[in-house]
C-alpha cells in the first residue's frame, strides 16, 4: 500500500505535538499571570463611591486620625465604617449645604444607611483580623498604601496569599513601632532589618526562632509535589532535625505561616 503521508510530515507532526504542549503551558502561564495582574485584581484602580469621599482631603489635608472613622480597628476583626452620624458630626456644620453631601444628609433624614462600595475584598475562606495586626505594629499604610494621597480609595496591594505571606514569613521586614501604626508618613528606616528584628522580639510576634538569628529563605522544595508548594508547603514551617539514634524531632519554624492562622 502506498504511503499516504510524505516523510516530511513526521517533522510537522512532532512540531505540532510539542507545539501544542508548549501552547497549553504558555496559555496556562498567561492565564495565571493575567489572574494575578493589577488589571484583574484592580490594584490601583480608584473605585467610585456614592459620595466621593476623599481620604487625601480628610487624612492628608486635615489630618484626621484613621480611628476617628474606623473606630473598631484596634478591638475587632473589622476596622469599622463610620455611621452616618459620624459624617454629620462635622458636616452638620461644615459644607452643610453642599450638594455633594446630599446622600449623607438623606441617609440621616430617611434613616437609610449609605452603601459604600467595598475596595478591599478578601476571599471568604481567609480570615483577617485588623486588631491583632495593629496591636503588633503593622501600620495602616503597610497594606493600604498612602491613603493620605488617595482622592478616591483604591487597592494598593493585591491581597493575594503570596502577598500576605511575604510579611507572615518575614514580619521583621515590615513591622514598625506601635506608636507609628497610624502614621501615614512613616517610612522604614535604613536599618529596618535590625529594627524589625528588635520589634518582633519586643512585641512577641509569633516567631519561634531564637532572637537575632538570620531569617531563613523559604526552602525550595525539590520533590515533585508541587502545585501546593507554589503557595506554601509544610516545608515552610517544618524544620526537621535529624538526631543520631533517635526519632527525628520536627521543630516548627514559623507559626505565622501555619494554615489555621488564616484558614478555618
Amino acid at each position, binding site marked *: 500500500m502506498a504511503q499516504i503521508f510524505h516523510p516530511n510530515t513526521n517533522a510537522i507532526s512532532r512540531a505540532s505535538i510539542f507545539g501544542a504542549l508548549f501552547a497549553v503551558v504558555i496559555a496556562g502561564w498567561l*492565564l495565571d499571570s493575567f*489572574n494575578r495582574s493589577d488589571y*484583574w485584581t*484592580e490594584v490601583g484602580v480608584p473605585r467610585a463611591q456614592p459620595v466621593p469621599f476623599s481620604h487625601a482631603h480628610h487624612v492628608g489635608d486635615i489630618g484626621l486620625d484613621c480611628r476617628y472613622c474606623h*473606630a*473598631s480597628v484596634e*478591638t*475587632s*476583626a*473589622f476596622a*469599622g*465604617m*463610620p*455611621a*452616618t*452620624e*459620624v459624617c454629620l458630626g462635622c458636616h452638620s456644620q461644615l459644607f452643610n449645604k453642599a450638594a455633594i453631601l446630599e446622600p449623607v444628609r438623606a*441617609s*440621616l433624614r430617611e*434613616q*437609610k*444607611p*449609605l*452603601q*459604600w*462600595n*467595598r475596595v478591599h*475584598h478578601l*476571599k*471568604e*475562606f481567609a*480570615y483577617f483580623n485588623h*486588631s*491583632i495586626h495593629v*496591636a*503588633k505594629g503593622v501600620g495602616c499604610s503597610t497594606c493600604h498604601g498612602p491613603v493620605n494621597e488617595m482622592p478616591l480609595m483604591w487597592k494598593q496591594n493585591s491581597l493575594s496569599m503570596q502577598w500576605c505571606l511575604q510579611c507572615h514569613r518575614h514580619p521583621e521586614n515590615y513591622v514598625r513601632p506601635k506608636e507609628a501604626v497610624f502614621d501615614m508618613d512613616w517610612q522604614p528606616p535604613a536599618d529596618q532589618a535590625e529594627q524589625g528584628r528588635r520589634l518582633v522580639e519586643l*512585641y*512577641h510576634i*509569633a516567631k*519561634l526562632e531564637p532572637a537575632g538569628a538570620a531569617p531563613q529563605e523559604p526552602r525550595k522544595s525539590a520533590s515533585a*509535589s508541587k*502545585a*501546593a508548594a507554589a503557595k506554601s*508547603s*509544610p516545608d515552610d*514551617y517544618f524544620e*526537621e532535625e535529624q538526631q543520631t539514634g533517635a*526519632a*527525628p*524531632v*520536627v*521543630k*516548627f519554624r514559623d*507559626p505565622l505561616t*501555619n*494554615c*489555621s*492562622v488564616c*484558614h*478555618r
Partner: protein
Amino acid sequence: MSAAISSIEPMTLDALRRKLAERGSKPLWRSLDELAETPEFMEYLHREFPKAASEWQSGTSRRRFLQLMGASLMLAAAQGCTRQESQAIVPYVEAPRDFKPGQVQHFATATSRGGYGLGLMVESHDGRPTKIDGNPRHPYSHGATDVFAQASILNLYDPDRSQTVLNAGRISTWDQWLTELRPALDRVRAARGRGLSLLTGATSSPTLIAQIKDLLQQFPEAKWHIHEPCDLQQHRYGGQTAGQRPLDKLYDLTKAKRILALDADFLGSGPDSLRLTRQYAQRRRDELSSAQMTRLYSAGPAPNCTTAMADHHRPLPAAKVRNVLFRLNQMLSGAEAKWLPSGLAADEQAWVDTVAADLKQHGAESVVIVGDSQPADVHAFARDANRQLGCVGPQGCVRYVASILAAAADGVRPLAELVDDLNGQRVAVLAMLGGNPVYDAPADLDFAAAMKKSSATSIHLSAYDNETSQHCLWHIPALHELESWSDIRALDGTASIMQPLIEPLYGSATKSAHDLLGVLAGEKAPKSAYERVSAHWTQWLKDRQPIANFDVTWATWLQDGVIADSASEAIGADAALKAEPRDEAAPNQDLEKKSPTAKSLEIVFQPDVAVWDGRYANNGWLQELPRPISKLTWGNVAGVAPQLAERLNLQDGDLVTLTLDGRSVEAPVLRMPGHADNCVSVTLGYGRTRAGHVGNGVGFNAYLLRGRENLNSAQGLEIAKTGRKLDLAMTQHHHSLEGHVEWTDNTRPEPVRSGEIADFEKDPHFLQQEFDRHSPPSLLPNFEYSGYAWGMSIDLNSCVGCNACVVACQAENNIPIVGPEQVRNGREMHWLRIDSYYRGDPTSPETFFQPLACQHCEHAPCELVCPVAATTHSPEGLNEMTYNRCVGTRYCSNNCPYKVRRFNFLEYNDATTPVLKLLRNPEVTVRSRGVMEKCTYCVQRISAARIVAKREDRSIHDGEVVTACQAVCPAQAIVFGDLNDPKSAVNQRKASPLNYQLLGELNTLPRTTYMGRLRNPNPDLVALEADRSQAPNATVHPLDPQQLGAG
C-alpha cells in the same frame, strides 16, 4: 439491600448468646447485627462506606456523569479566575451604643421546655444570633443546654416559617383580620365572654398568665384550655386536683448515694435534666470509692440515657412501676404483717427487695425518682417512699414545690371540654396561641372533626402553617422566641426575662401571644410585648422593694438572665403528701390487671428525643441526629425487646400494624436490647403532613393510637406483620472502629474500657495498658511544641449520651445535613458522633457511650498520605484541614483508624436560600462539595482567644478556650486545654489513673484521651442475677401471667 436481609435466616437469641460466650468473658458488642455477623455489618466494618455509596445516586448514566464532571471542572477553572463581585459595606445611620462591628456579643434570654424556663446565652454576630448556649447563672442550665436549645436557632431561620396572615388559606393582612374579627368579638363581649375559648400550651410566663387572667376577668364566661401533648402530667389540667396546685419535684443529687429511677429518664429529658445530669455526673466523677460513689438503679420500659448509665437496669413494663413502688413501700415500712401481694413475678420481687434493702440502708442519702409519664397515684407512692427514706426536705435529696405552670387552680380547663364545646356549637371565637391540636390531640377526641363541625371563628397563632392552621379560618404567623419579649419561670420558680436578639425577620406580620391577647381584650392602643413585660415586673419589684430603681434592676435582670429572689418556696414532706394524697385501696385493684402479656401487649408513648412532640419536626439538625443508643435518624420506630421480636419473628425494619382500641398505624420495628418484654415503645412527633419541607412524611404518627385515657401508656396493643420492610436510616454501624470485633485476639483493648469500682479500689490503674503510660518507639518524627499544646479529655464515667455536643458541633461549625438517603449510604457529616456499645446478655445489656471526634494524633496517619498537604500538623499540635487546598482524594479518611473524617460527596450546604445565610457562623468556612472535613478542636475559638491574649500581651488562660462540645455538655464530660500548662484542667484529668488512649495500641498518640467508665454494682444483685441467668430459659420466656399476683 433488603433482599439480602430477608435471605438470611434470623439468628435466635440463644444462638447469639452462644456466640457471645465464644468470644470470651463479656465482650463489648455494637448491635444485634454485629453479634449475628450479618453481611451488612461485615461490609460496614471492612469498608469505609457501604458498597456503591460512592456511585452517582440518581439515574444518571456513567457517561452523563463524566460529561457533568468535565463541565464542572471547566467551570471550576473558570471560577478560579473570576473577578470578585462587588460588595457593599453598609454602616449604621446611628450606631448602637457599645456596638463594635465584627465582634461577638452575648445576650441572656430563656426558652421554654414544656412551659418551664431554661436560661440561655445567645451569641450574636453583628446583630444576628448564630449560636445558642446555656446561661451559667441559670439554675436549670448551669451553662449547658439540651439538643433542642442548640437546634432552635435553625427554627428561627427556617425558610418554611410562616410569613403572612392567612384567611382560609389565602394571603391576608393583620388589619384585615382586625376588621373582620371585630363583630364576632363584640358579640362575645355582649355575652360576657360566652363563646370565647382560648387554647394555649403549658405556660409559666407571669406576664402571659396575668394577661389571660385579666381577659378572663373582662369575659367571665370565656374559657381557657391548655393542651401540651408531651406534658406527661396531664392531670394538672383538670380532674382530681382542681382547685389545688400540683406538685413539682426538685431533686438534689449531689448528696444522693443511691438513686432508683422508675420509668424516668431524668438524665435525658425533662426540664431539669441538665441540672440533674450535672449533679449526677459530678458526684460520679469525684467520689471514686465504693462507700461514696452513687449507685443508680433503673427500671422502665424502653432504653434511654438513664437506663444506659444505670448500674443495674431492669426492663419493666410501665404498668408495673406501680407494683414496684407498692412493694418498695412495703419493704421500707417494714410492717410485714399487713403486706398485700404486690403483683410482681418472683424474680422481679427479689430484685425490688434487694434494691429496697440497699436504699433503706442509705436512708436519707437515697432517692426514688419516678418519670412524669406515670399517673398521679404512682407519684404519690414515690412521695411516700421518699418520705420513708427521710430524703425529703430543704437539705435532702428532694423538695416539693407547688408547680408554677398554669393549671386547674388558675381556671384552666382540659382539652376534652373544648372539643365538647366545639361539637356542641358553643364556641363563637376560638383563639389558639401556638400548638397543633389537630395533629397531636388524643385521637379519640378527633379534634379535626370537631373543628370542621364547629362554626366558630378560629384563629391560630403559629410559627408554621401547620395541620391546625389548615383547619382554621385565620392563621397568624408567630414570632420566634428570639424575636420577641416575654418572661418565663424555671421549675423552681426562678424567673427569667426572654429578650429578643433580632428584629422580626418577617416584619410586623408576625405576632406574639401577648399581641394577640391584647387584641382579644379589645385594647384600643395595643401595647408592645416589651411594655407588658416591663410593666409586670415593675409592679413585682414595687410590691417587694418600693424604693428600688427599676431601670438599674431591670438591666441587671437582663444581663444576668435570671431575676433574683424569684424562686418558689418548698413544701414539706407531710404537706406534700397531704396535697396529693395517695389512694390506699385503689392501686391494689390495678396491680394485677395491668400487667402486659404476649396476647395483650403494652404500648408506651414517649416524646421523641429529637423532635419532641413534633414541634421540631422541620428541624433538619434534629431529624438527622442519631438518637441515643438506637442511632436512628429520620424517623421513628416501634421499639421491641429482642425476645419479643424473636417470638413474633420480626426483624429490624419490618413494617407492622399496631392496633389499639380499634385505631391502627403502620410502623417499622426496631429491636432494642434492654427493652421490656411484651411492651412496644413508640415516639411521638412524627408522621407530620404539614411540618414543612424537612419534616413532611417522615416516620409514622403515633398520636393516631393515643387515646385520652391512656396518654402515656396503654394495654391491649395488637401487633401484626405486614410482610413489608422499611430501610431504616441508622448510623449504628457507620464508622465502626476496626479491631474490636477480632474477638479471638483477647489482648486487644476494647474501645470503651470499663470496670467496677471494687477493682478500681484494688488497683486504680487497672484499666490502663502499658502504652497508656509509655509510648512505644516510632519511626515517625516527634514534634516539639514550644507554645501551646492543645488536648482534650473525655470522661466516659460522666457522659450520659444526650447528644447535645453533636448538635452544638453542628451549629458551631456550619455542618450540613444530608438527608435520609445519604445517611443510609453512610454519608452523614457530623464531626462528632457518639458511639454506643453493649456488654452482656442481649435482653438486658450494659450500655456504654463514647463521644468520638478527630483525636488529633501526634502520629497522625492522615497527614502522611495527603498528596497536597491539605491536612497538616500545627505548631500547637492540631491536626488541621485546609479546605481550599483539599482536592478530595479521601486518602486521609481511608487511613484514619478512628473514622472521624467526613467527605462532602455532594453540595450539602444550602448556599442559595437567603435566610439560611444568616444562620452560618461567620468564623468557620462553609465547605463545598469534594472537600474533606473533620473536627478542628474549634480552631476558630482558639484563634479568637489567641488574638485577645496577644493583644493584651499575655498567654491564654486555662479555660479561656472552650470548645463547642465542651461548653454545651451538661455532664462536664469534656475538658479542653493546654497540655503544656501543668496546672491546666485537662492535665488534671489526664493524670487520672483511668486515663486511656483509644486505639492506643496503634501508637497514633491521640491528643484526645478518655477516662474509663466505672460501674458500681450491688454485689447482692449481681449474685441474684447470676442465679437467675442460670435458671433455664428464665430470661427468654415472657412472664407467665399465672405467676402474677402470686408473689
